[in-house]
């Protein structure tokens, strides 16, 4: 069974630029999560999708972050414009139910 795929694995941008991350969840998983993991901290949930509907985006900085889930499968997370404090690893996870989340390898973003 293929795992959660994410790309790119690494990205370096200048502040005020925009960036997008892509996630392909495990086939059949209805729930998809995006987390931000700042160095030295635990993952923080940014947004949770159930199929292609948003069920929780309370911690998403909506003035600069946006996310969508196309046809209830792939998802993209965008930052526009990026700030220095957005430097982090962005993790995507998917789950069939609440029992277990399966995580992708993450995208490490560096904002200079």
């Amino acid at each position, binding site marked *: 069974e293929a795992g959660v795929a994410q790309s790119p694995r690494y990205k370096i941008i200048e502040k005020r630029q925009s960036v997008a991350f892509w996630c392909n969840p495990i086939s059949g998983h209805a729930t998809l*999560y995006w987390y931000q993991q700042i160095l030295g901290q635990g*993952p923080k*949930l940014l947004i949770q999708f159930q199929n292609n509907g948003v069920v929780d985006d309370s911690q998403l900085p909506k003035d600069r972050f946006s996310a969508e889930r196309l046809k209830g499968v792939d998802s993209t997370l965008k930052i526009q414009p990026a700030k220095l404090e957005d430097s982090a690893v962005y993790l995507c996870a998917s789950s069939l139910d609440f029992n277990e989340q399966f995580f992708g390898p993450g995208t490490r973003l560096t904002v200079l």
Partner: protein
Amino acid sequence: AQSVTQPDIHITVSEGASLELRCNYSYGATPYLFWYVQSPGQGLQLLLKYFSGDTLVQGIKGFEAEFKRSQSSFNLRKPSVHWSDAAEYFCAVATPSGTYKYIFGTGTRLKVLA
């Protein structure tokens, strides 16, 4: 508000020694509880989980955890640590209502001495 506390940022143990990583949570009822491990450059992998029933749960890689309701704790243990266990360990809770929102602790980085 719900929260998860991992009081130990770093722990160093010798290979073959026993290990206990602490986790305390704050929630009005019993949440769902998880331990994840993250190796460098990798995503998180589930070690074990507790929803209800037997308070001692077994996981992968020889890990176990015990839920203690009176202490709001879910500590992770391993009787004999291997060098390959060096990683970062995260405790997480999921609040069993609606969307099962997950909250992660800040992690404990484990170093294993040969």
